[in-house]
């Protein structure tokens, strides 16, 4: 009964509706290719497995010990042996032909129309949009993190590497896995057919918070993508003088700018994450509130209600709702404040200063900054304007 219950429980997980990383629901060209390969392979393997299982059961029952004399023993049956060699070989050839074809099609990147670079590090992804004519034209490079925004119906070349250990980029609905290896650049083509958010997860064990290293691809209509892009490139807007956000800017410069960058805030002291962080970088916070997540896409910047509104939007509604960004009403202030005050308490990271000898005192992840409530308020107010 226990075994049946366990099998039933495992089987029933396939019925989950809120499963954004379901590999059986392709939403892009490459993932559809993978899907079209995997279901017949699973079907063939299933049929073979079932036949073998039934054969075993039949033999066990038919020839069980009933006290009968042991039959005459013989050796070899060439016809059967040849048949049992040729049949699996034919099945394997039948599987290999479409598999190799799919692999070659997946490796194709010459037809891409837009280029995005991703950098993995413990435990978040940086996304870089280089200057290019693709992606509708980008005149000046910019950087974001956690969410990679792409135009729908566009073949995007994702070039990735890692700054510390091996990570793996995987958005199940859009493509297969691609390892990101330090010192190497690996490429993968990504395309989303419909606007929406496509969740992913690092799939190469990369240390303490591997399970918390998530990422999302956000697909927008080309028009909405242009709006998003223009917003990413807009000039820095300083907070209104005398406001809490202005105090937050000072707090940011004194506390955060050592590692984090806000484009345009270039007088913010020495920005030298290489001295403090093992991966030599920290997320760029220029347009933090245009993303829905933070801390390696581990936590939502939106309240549950607002998040649901974006995630459950129809393709027609999605772009508008996503581009609203994080408004003061929708901000998940509880998690953001908690993160600012004591990040390691929310996500396991190597930040204990007494144990950082192997990394020359540099932490892996964001350390606790020991901020008081006033400083946290100021920083939240400042970050809320990074939209």
């Amino acid at each position, binding site marked *: 009964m226990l075994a049946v219950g366990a099998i039933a429980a495992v089987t029933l997980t396939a019925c989950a509706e809120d499963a954004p990383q379901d590999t059986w629901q392709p939403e892009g060209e490459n993932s559809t290719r993978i899907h079209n390969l995997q279901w017949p392979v699973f079907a063939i393997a299933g049929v073979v497995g079932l036949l073998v299982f039934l054969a075993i059961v039949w033999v066990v029952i038919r020839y069980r010990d009933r006290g009968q004399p042991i039959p005459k023993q013989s050796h070899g049956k060439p016809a059967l042996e040849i048949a049992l060699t040729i049949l699996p070989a034919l099945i394997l050839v039948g599987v290999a032909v479409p598999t190799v074809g799919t692999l070659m099609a997946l490796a194709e*990147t010459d037809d*891409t129309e837009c*280029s995005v*670079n991703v*950098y993995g590090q413990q435990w978040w992804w*940086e996304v*870089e949009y*280089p*200057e*290019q*004519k*693709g992606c509708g034209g980008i005149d000046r*490079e*910019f*950087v974001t993190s956690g969410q990679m925004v792409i135009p729908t119906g566009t073949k995007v*070349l994702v*070039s990735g*590497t890692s*700054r510390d250990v091996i990570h793996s980029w995987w958005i199940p609905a859009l493509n297969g896995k691609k390892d990101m290896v*330090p*010192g*190497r*650049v*690996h*490429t993968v083509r990504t395309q989303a057919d419909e606007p929406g958010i496509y969740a992913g997860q690092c799939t190469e064990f990369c240390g303490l918070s591997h399970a918390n290293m998530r990422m999302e691809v956000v697909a927008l209509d080309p028009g909405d993508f242009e709006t998003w892009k223009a917003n990413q490139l807009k000039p820095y807007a300083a907070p209104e003088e005398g406001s809490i956000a202005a105090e937050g800017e000072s707090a940011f410069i004194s506390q955060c700018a050592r590692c984090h*960058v806000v*484009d345009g805030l*270039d007088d913010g002291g020495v*920005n*030298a*994450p*290489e001295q403090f962080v093992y*991966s*030599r*970088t920290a997320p*760029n916070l220029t347009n933090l509130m245009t993303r829905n997540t933070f801390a390696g896409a581990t936590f939502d910047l939106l309240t549950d209600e607002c998040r649901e509104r974006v995630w459950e939007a129809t393709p027609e509604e999605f772009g508008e709702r996503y581009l609203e960004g994080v408004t003061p009403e929708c901000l998940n202030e509880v998690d953001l404040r908690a993160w600012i005050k004591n990040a390691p308490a929310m996500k396991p990271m190597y930040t204990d200063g007494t144990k950082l000898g192997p990394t020359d005192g540099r932490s892996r992840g964001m350390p606790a900054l020991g901020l008081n409530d006033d400083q946290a308020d100021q920083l939240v107010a400042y970050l809320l304007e990074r939209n």
Partner: protein
Amino acid sequence: MLTNGSKLLLAGTTLAAVAAIVYGVTQDGTLGVVGLLSAAIALGLLAGIVIATRDGNVSAMDEAAAQTAVATHVAPEGNIWPLIVAGGAALVVLGLVTQSAFVMLGIGLLLIAGLQWMVDAWSQSASADGTFNRDARARFAGPLEFPLLATAVGGVVVFSFSRIMLFLSKTAGPVGFVVAALLILAGGFLFASQRSMRSTAVAGLTAFAALGLVAGGVAAGLDGERFIEEHETTGLLGEESECDTTDETHADENASQTVGNKAAIMADITLDAEGELTSKAPGQQASQRIVVGRGNPSNIIFHNESDEPRRITLTTGQRPLLDEEGEEIEGQTTPDQRCTALAEEGGSQLLTFRIDKRSAVADEAFELTVPGVEGQAIEVVVP
């Protein structure tokens, strides 16, 4: 009466107990004390068992045999091991106040001599029959002694060989080893051509060759290694901010042709026949800019299609000038550069670099240039 085996165990018990006290007094932490006390208790227990069973030679209940057993009356023969143990201990003490190498040597001697002493003492009291005792010792110690001895001899041979190789000049080396190979060939021919040879002759020849090798190694080692010229490298050019030169370096032209890195490049930089410098990143159009990730190792390949050997140089602003001891000289800076070796006409070179600074806040633009080619540069952008 204490038996031979129990003496060793009792000594071990005492040593572990004393060590536990010393450790507890001089060191923080209880783990070491607990470990050493556990060892003392375990050794004490074993000592008790060995005494109770009279070294396992006779029944503990057999009083008469206990008085006449071999273990109780066969006196060990004299041997050299106590002297070597003492020498090892002296070396350890000497090493503590001079060089740590003596400590290691002393510990090695202590271990070897201590083990040999124990095996000798055990075998000499194994029975009243001296021949049997010698066989017993050989059976026990042989499997350990022969491999260790062979390793030591092999080590001496290899070390001597290496000293001779490092002593001989670049040209004399091949000649010397051709001669050595011929001698070995001649020796082998000599052995093979004889119907029989006396074992003493073979041993003598081998010993002579071994002595010659060791003597040569010692002599060569004492005389020192040959002069090895330090070659100028592109890394050195970068360290000395001299990447703007168009001169040839002694650097290995193939040193940067790492296949793995060439398969993972950020961009191809090409100097064409007209002297124009362009960059082409995968999936992007050719331009005069490349974007590289901050704090991330990046590889570029420089293709030289001009009619002269050229190198590519990356300049990322200025860095503090260092004195001979590696200390920063206040107020003085020098170009922060990295560069390739000269690429032949039609050739290519790989450049690997990492930039930790953002280009937007740098005082000077980050650039890839080709020394000797004016007016051409690729801007390097680090977001």
